[in-house]
């Protein structure tokens, strides 16, 4: 089943390693970047909302 003779041969990607691995790396990297940015965006928004809540927690939050 496994068509690669060795781990090294798999890494070489039939001579196209210089193109395949950067592509995969870039794609995964962008996914991770998006994940981190999304989580931080939510955390920031939550902080702002909590701070606003603390400031006028009692008063004019009517819907």
């Amino acid at each position, binding site marked *: *089943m*496994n*068509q*690669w003779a060795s781990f090294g041969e*798999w890494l070489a*990607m*039939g*001579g*196209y390693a210089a*193109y*395949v691995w*950067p*592509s*995969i790396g*870039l*794609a*995964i990297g*962008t*996914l991770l*970047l*998006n*994940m981190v*940015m*999304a*989580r931080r*965006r*939510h955390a*920031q*928004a*939550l902080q*702002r*909302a*909590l701070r*606003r*809540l603390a400031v006028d*927690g009692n008063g*004019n*939050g*009517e*819907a």
Partner: protein
Amino acid sequence: MATWTWFHKLGSPPHVYRIAGRFAPWFGWGALLCIVYGLFGGLVLAPPDYQQKDAFRIIYVHAPAAWLSLSCYTAMAVAAFVGLVWRMKIAHAAAAALAPVGASFAFVCLATGSLWGRPMWGTWWEWDARLTSQLILLFLYLGYMALRSAHDDLQRADRSSAVLAIVGVVNVPIIHYSVYWWNSLHQGATVMKADRPSMPTEMLVPLLVMFLGFTLFQLWVLCTRLRAEILDRERNARWLQEQLREGA
């Protein structure tokens, strides 16, 4: 009546905030699983392409990114339309949530397309119809995000970027076919012919799994960012206080 209440409930921020929170983990883990399995299938198990050998494996990230960049833009336009017509803040929040991830998929698609083209055509950039229309789509994203950040008032930013998204989505097919028409004038179809249908199953299955993985990732980012956008837009709502007091 049931469909209307469903649609109506989608309009209420507290409800959407909660279900986005509940669904997010499922999308997140699902995406991770699919992408790991898809990459393993594509990079290890799938046989090399008879023509492009192992370089074709870039398709496992290139094609899903291309598909996602387009589906994100369409979803943004639909959300923008709903937001404008029914004046639903949630829809504008969804459009705002989709833009960054859509733009980054467009960029990934371009970069991997260029990396894939290098061994095929010997140049980093080739004015191939697909790459060119993808480049223009990236410009549309950048224009959208530039317009959104140009307005300080959140509501005006929402509504004017919504108009742009709708105008943009009408033009996407026009741009697509005019680029293909322009490209076919000057040269025959390029050699990058790894179209999906002609692929054997052990190559095709990982690709479909990657599509699913990327889509689930898009939904995860949508849920996470949507909650942030809702928090920004619902500053003075009472439900927000109970929600925040008992933990996000």
